[in-house]
């Protein structure tokens, strides 16, 4: 197990290094000069040159890559061109919004999807199953930003239960802050839950058709015992895979959802930085997101080994 984990970790680190080079190269070839954007249409060439010097944009590309890379190893992500504050500070301010949002929607979607999956699998083909599966089809088809607008209309404008957007800040109290994350989390979670529920259902149905399940039934176990003791654990491998993939989707989804709900999260930061050509911020956040996805994949790989020890032994 330990060997397996170390191997996966090494592969993950190499992936991250390669990703950092690709990210830096891709973003640096974007057209548009950050200094010119900041000073606008009336600026003199002289003022633009002064600003380029201030921002260190006149240094060669590979020099900038290496100083950026080594800086990140020590936790220094550079200084934002537009905000003129350390990128690490910007990221820290935003993570406290995005991470709780992503975790909350992941928890919500799992909490909704797994019971639905189990319930429908055990009632396969009956009216309840058909109805719920029809509803999940709708859930998959709904784009999350549209769902977000509907939720805002009902819960914020008509019922006035929660704010229409914005983030109150954790310093205003946990409940007030959580309240501003509830609608966005639901908007992100529902479409994901629909997918997850279908995967859980089909994987469970497949497992329930296996020979050893028939054996378990034959030796006189109750349907519940068969389901929870024998079938569920084996059915979970594809579910965990999808969960890992969904986390990456959730991170991408936050870019749209954070704009709809004007939440000051990482997604908003990336979006804003791209339009302002605050390249160093974009690079920092994207590397962080890539690192998160790689970390999640690593954890998913490790959890396979926990669910099914044969997988670790084989490799």
């Amino acid at each position, binding site marked *: 197990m330990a060997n397996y984990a170390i191997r996966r970790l090494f592969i993950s680190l190499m992936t991250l290094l390669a990703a950092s080079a690709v990210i830096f190269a891709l973003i640096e070839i*974007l*057209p*548009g*000069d950050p200094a*010119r*954007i*900041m*000073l*606008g*249409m*009336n*600026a*003199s060439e*002289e*003022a633009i040159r*002064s*600003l380029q010097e*201030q921002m260190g944009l006149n240094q060669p590309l590979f020099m900038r890559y290496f100083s950026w890379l080594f800086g990140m190893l020590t936790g220094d992500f550079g200084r934002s061109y*537009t*905000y*003129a*504050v350390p990128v690490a500070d*910007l990221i820290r*301010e*935003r993570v406290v919004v995005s991470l709780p949002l992503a975790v909350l929607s992941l928890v919500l979607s799992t909490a909704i999807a797994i019971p639905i999956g189990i319930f429908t699998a055990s009632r396969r083909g009956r009216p309840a199953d058909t109805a719920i599966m029809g509803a999940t089809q709708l859930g998959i088809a709904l784009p999350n930003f549209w769902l977000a*607008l509907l939720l*805002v*209309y009902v819960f*914020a*404008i008509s019922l*006035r239960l929660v*704010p*229409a*957007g*914005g*983030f109150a*800040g954790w310093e205003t109290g946990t409940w007030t802050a959580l309240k501003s994350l509830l609608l966005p989390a639901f908007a992100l979670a529902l479409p994901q839950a629909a997918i997850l529920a279908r995967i859980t259902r089909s994987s469970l149905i497949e497992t329930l058709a296996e020979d050893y399940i028939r054996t378990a039934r034959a030796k006189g176990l109750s349907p519940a015992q068969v389901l929870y003791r024998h079938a569920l654990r084996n059915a979970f491998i594809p579910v965990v895979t999808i969960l890992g993939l969904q986390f990456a989707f959730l991170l991408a989804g936050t870019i749209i959802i954070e*704009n*709809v*709900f*004007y*939440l*000051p*999260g990482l997604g*908003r*930061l990336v979006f*804003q930085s791209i*339009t*302002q*050509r*605050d390249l160093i911020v974009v690079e920092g956040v994207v590397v962080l997101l890539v690192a998160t996805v790689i970390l999640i994949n690593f954890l998913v790989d490790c959890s396979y080994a926990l669910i099914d020890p044969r997988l670790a032994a084989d490799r």
Partner: protein
Amino acid sequence: MTLWRSALLALTLVLGSASAHAARSDLVLGVVLEPPHLDPTAGAAAAIDEIVYANVFEGLTRIGANGEVLPALAESWDISDDGRVYTFKLHGKVLFHDGTTFDGEDVKFSLDRARDAKSVNAQKVLFEGIENVEIVDPLTVRITLKQPDGDFLYNMGWGDAVIVAPETAATNKERPVGTGPFKFGNWAKGSQITLLRNTAYWGSQPALEKATFRIIPDPAAATAALLAGDVQAFPVFPSYETVPQFQTDPRFKVVIGTTEGETVLGMNNAKPPFDALKVRQAIAHAIDRKALIDGTMFGFGTPIGSFFPPHHAAYTDLTAKSAYDPELAKKLLAEAGHPQGFKTTLKLPPPVYARRGGEIIAAQLAAIGIEAQIVPLEWAQWLDQVFKGKDYDLTIVSHTEPNDLNIFARDDYYFNYNNPAFKELIKTIAATSDQAQRAELYREAQTVLADDMPAAFLFQLPKTGIWDAGVEGLWENGPIQANDLTNVRWTD
């Protein structure tokens, strides 16, 4: 007077004063763009001025709600007979928000900093005419110009010309320190900026104790935030299509004003076929401005026939010179040697007036045989390719700076328009201080542009303001991009 009556009277007085105290003194305003930082002397972003202008920072003069020049930190001024020497008498007892005293040293520091070789001021051109700045005594400053400049007092009212203190100039981006009626409170990045009443303000105290600018970039979210009551004012509301919904809702006041934003269809005057006057005229006559404004701006916006804001006293309506007339347009095109029309490109920056307007204009041009291929660009690309590189045929953009008729007199500007007579005219205007004479010259300049058509003039951008019916004192028009909160109060 019986005991009863006096008791009743006392009760009324108590209740009356209580309700006066109960009037709200906080306001949440929505803005579309988050400023990159909060130093108006180091960036072009209008989003900076929308928060700090007149609220946190003040200049020698300031621009009022209707575009007039008002005294600010300078209580009065004298202009020498030759128009070159301005002597400003400064207000005494003015304190910066950090408690330091404001005087002539700060004025000299701010202006010298803005025109320094290392300056990153986005409007450096405003200060180019200054020869030197002298401190006569702590509250008197004498500014000598290289040549007379009729716009000088106006220029000193720009957000880029505000007075900053030497001690805090370097940190104003994060923690702005000015002399205004509001001081900086807090900036939750990506979310909101809070200003607090400056109790030590030298002028009259504002009614608001706290003003919060909440950043809401998405038009649908802006609508929802107003309807849900999360924000109580949106001075420049981004979603034209939902304005009618608010107009019929008694909880809101909808105020449509004008701005300094002249929206034009820019043409590359140096590139054939746009170097031919008849081609430019044909394009201008092919555009139905009414249909364009209805389709793009949902009817909000004033048609213009030259490059001048309709709310200005010297404005003259020249829309007739490029009236919609597709037959005439076809004829002009044929005379210019393009009876079958031609193919060209139309490069569009992101704002909705350009993207939506571009499609309508492309369709109107197609009707006279000009096939314009639409190329959508990001701002960064637009600035690079069109504005700096001048690599374009047609483009749509709104010029939002005030007092910017002179861009058509600039060398190396993206229109590639070169008319020595017009340049001479702009020089004369700059050197003229007499208001009646200036108005006459402005009218002349507008006519030259309407005849020469270096661009097709489309419409003046509207300022669509929506706020709670209980709020008053916000600007109707946008003579500069600012949200002056000094007179804003709740009426109930």
